[in-house]
């Protein structure tokens, strides 16, 4: 028997970053808001405090803050026609669980997307011609431009106290920043981080090769800073325990530090923890969402009526929730019709290592999540793709994020995997190796999508979501081309040995790559090819909205959080200034 709660104006599915943003803004606009979070509450004090937070086994290896897949997971297959099987353990990506979501235990690498990414299809056609890419490259324009989003990027970066060196202020290229970024209206609110030894060696070699190195933009904040709401953020201490840890120092921008206190202080806002949302309820006649059904902490099925529903869950959870709720037309890879689940994308990651064989001390444990030096010369808008046969790109960086030794013990190729040779190699190379990473874009393909599994169910008896994904040909070409450039920098860094980690032949759900899952409920200009309009409002139910990287039509060669935050403030603005005054579709198809 379903328990029925008192109606609220807004139900938020999830209690992470976008829920914190919307919860605060909508509660202050006078709306009653409840956020339904599947996990529990956790705060800087007492939960994240030292020394117990510095536990690699508990947090990194056993995934204390990540989704519990014994309750709900997804199934996975590489290609249409293969039997999808459940992801029985976490691996490739780590969705968060608990208040604050992944933005509580992220690294803090906070990049804007280049302007070209938002108009990728029309930009590529104009620049390279219509025949440049084949039909399997289903890139799209977002329905929003960088120029429209820029004020929201700027605001989100102020909220989070982002620290960095600007590269382009109102069209003027700035020394020391990223010259390939879009124009920003203001500098970063805080100066860049210190430079690690890894970053120094990388930057020196990159500059010698004619590239333009700069410090990575960081949510590991570099000085005492008060954000526009009055939240105090403290300076990063470079402890080397960012992702997947909570920050003990109030120094890594997170919902808990920057936003949530102001939502929780508002009587219009409630964070309801241990509430697992099963589906969105909606009226088939009126075409509006009526609320959400969830399982509460006691295990009861509860209906929360709401005038507006916002999906603020992790990237692939949002489209899967829409499929479970039978909202919109599910994407079908056979006919290539339907929208929900379409254009699932990821991130194309490769790496390289430079071994100094004891000649340099890197001290990899003097680290922070966004402590890095990067070049953006090979992001999508930075170079000419003519004759290369692919679209996209990404940045190359030397991050010094951690020396935690269960996972960080680099050894050269050809080293035995265990035994005396391995042990001695680990000892020799642990403190004398620099790791580089290529953070590449992910281009949609008609066979890569999210659906509902026909066989496996979750703890609530619902079908699991099903992921079909492999690296598209476009991205293989892209990764090879830019990984070669990265290898050239690695070569120039003066090591004794180097190794290059090329893209695997097939995507695997097993090794950790990144938690930058994107797409499946994409934004756009046409209801036939997108799930939400440019304001992140559902084409099907005007009072249903989708936040997060679920809405990216393709993933750029950058980390997604800055764009996720900017889009949430952009959508909140549309809700408050337009929608609440006159509820209905903000864009006519």
């Amino acid at each position, binding site marked *: 028997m379903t328990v029925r709660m008192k109606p609220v104006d807004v139900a938020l599915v999830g209690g992470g970053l976008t829920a914190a943003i919307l919860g605060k803004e909508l509660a202050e606009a006078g709306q009653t808001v409840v956020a339904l979070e599947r996990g529990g509450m956790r705060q800087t004090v007492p939960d994240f405090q030292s020394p117990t937070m510095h536990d690699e086994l508990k947090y990194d290896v056993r995934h204390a803050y990540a989704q519990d897949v014994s309750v709900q997971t997804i199934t996975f297959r590489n290609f249409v026609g293969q039997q999808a099987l459940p992801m029985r353990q976490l691996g490739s990506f780590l969705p968060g669980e608990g208040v604050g979501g992944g933005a509580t235990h992220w690294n803090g690498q906070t990049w804007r997307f280049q302007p070209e990414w938002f108009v990728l299809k029309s930009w590529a056609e104009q620049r390279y011609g219509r025949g440049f890419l084949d039909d399997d490259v289903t890139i799209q324009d977002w329905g929003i431009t960088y120029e429209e989003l820029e004020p929201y990027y700027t605001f989100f970066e102020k909220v989070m106290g982002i620290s960095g060196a600007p590269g382009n202020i109102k069209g003027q290229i700035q020394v020391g920043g990223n010259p390939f970024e879009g124009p920003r209206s203001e500098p970063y609110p805080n100066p860049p981080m*210190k430079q690690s030894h890894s970053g120094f060696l990388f930057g020196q070699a990159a500059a010698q090769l004619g590239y333009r190195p700069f410090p990575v933009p960081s949510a590991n904040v570099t000085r005492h800073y008060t954000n526009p709401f009055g939240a105090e953020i403290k300076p990063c201490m470079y402890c080397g325990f960012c992702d997947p840890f909570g920050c003990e120092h109030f120094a890594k921008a997170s919902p808990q530090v920057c936003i949530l206190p102001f939502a929780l202080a508002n009587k219009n806002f409630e964070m309801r923890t241990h509430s697992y949302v099963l589906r969105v309820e909606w009226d088939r006649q009126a075409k509006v969402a009526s609320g959400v059904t969830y399982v509460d902490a006691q295990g009861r099925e509860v209906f929360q009526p709401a005038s507006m529903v916002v999906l603020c869950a992790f990237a692939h959870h949002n489209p899967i929730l829409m499929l479970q709720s039978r909202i919109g037309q599910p994407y079908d890879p056979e006919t290539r019709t339907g929208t929900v689940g379409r254009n699932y994308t990821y991130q194309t990651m490769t790496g390289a290592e430079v071994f100094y064989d004891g000649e340099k001390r890197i001290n990899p444990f003097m680290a922070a999540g966004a402590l890095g030096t990067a070049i953006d010369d090979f992001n999508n808008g930075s170079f000419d793709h003519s004759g290369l046969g692919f679209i996209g790109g990404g940045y190359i960086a030397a991050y010094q994020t951690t020396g935690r030794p269960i996972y960080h013990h680099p050894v050269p190729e050809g080293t035995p995997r265990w035994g005396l040779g391995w042990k001695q190699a680990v*000892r020799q190379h642990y403190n004398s190796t620099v790791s580089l990473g290529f953070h590449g874009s992910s281009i949609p393909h008609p066979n890569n999508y999210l659906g509902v599994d026909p066989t496996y169910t979750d703890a609530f008896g619902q079908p699991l979501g099903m992921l079909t994904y492999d690296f598209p040909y476009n991205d293989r070409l892209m990764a090879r081309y830019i990984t070669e450039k990265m290898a050239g920098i690695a070569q120039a860094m003066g090591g004794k040995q180097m190794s290059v980690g090329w893209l695997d032949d097939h995507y695997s759900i097993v090794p950790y790559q990144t938690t930058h899952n994107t797409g499946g409920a994409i934004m756009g200009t046409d209801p036939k090819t997108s799930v939400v309009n440019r304001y992140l409002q559902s084409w099907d139910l005007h009072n249903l909205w989708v936040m997060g990287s679920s809405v990216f039509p393709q993933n750029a060669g950058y980390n997604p959080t800055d764009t996720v935050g900017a889009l949430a403030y952009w959508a909140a603005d549309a809700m408050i200034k337009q929608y609440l005054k006159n509820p209905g579709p903000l864009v006519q198809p």
Partner: protein
Amino acid sequence: MAVTVPDHAAAEEHPVQVAQVGRQNALSSPPPRADLPAERGMLFFFNDEEARFVDAAVERLIPSDSEWPGAAWAGVLNFIDRQLAAAYGAGARMYLKGPWVPDAPPQQGYQLRYTPAQLYRIGIAETRAHVTSNYSGREFWDLGAPVMDEVLSSLESGAIELPSLPAPVFFETLLANTIEGFFGDPVYGGNRDMVGWRMVGFPGAYAQFIDLVELYNLPYTRPPISIGDTGARQAYLDGHTHDAQRQ
């Protein structure tokens, strides 16, 4: 074009001396008390024969050498035993519902129906049975080191076929857990005396390097601390300048 990287060559030329960093205790010196015999704590999961197998196997995966003890001395047996007796061994946070497709491609990940505890129990029993029938009735732990390595390599490659599970899955689990036990915090029963950390120079649970991060090539020699080191905890609290009471 401007070079946008600050010049830190000066820092490279003047590495800060050890004394400026903290207490003297070079990480690169031999580990203290290495002459002590391996200690075995109470076993929660393994029986004595399973324990002999695991102790012998992990010592081949991370062996002792003339300078640094290996996994047996570091207590990796006790680490794995406690892990298997607790949530990890029981398959907590694993999706364990069927149906089962044990011969799935590697890209789809672990697809066996066993919890880690079950995987060890069966993997050990079947590996022992393989050894006794192929090595004149001897147990794994009675084989010489080169022969033990041969058996482990055959598990790793799948050259040995175990009746109930793919040998490489058992081997990879054992290897991963051995590395965890050698490098994880000592509070979990392995990494005795922080030997894994001392060997590579990882300082453990320190909370800040802000003043050191730009001193390139710094010989960092402060002894490591464990999260269970209550003295270190107090020192941390005494020196901690943040307002820990902030809500």
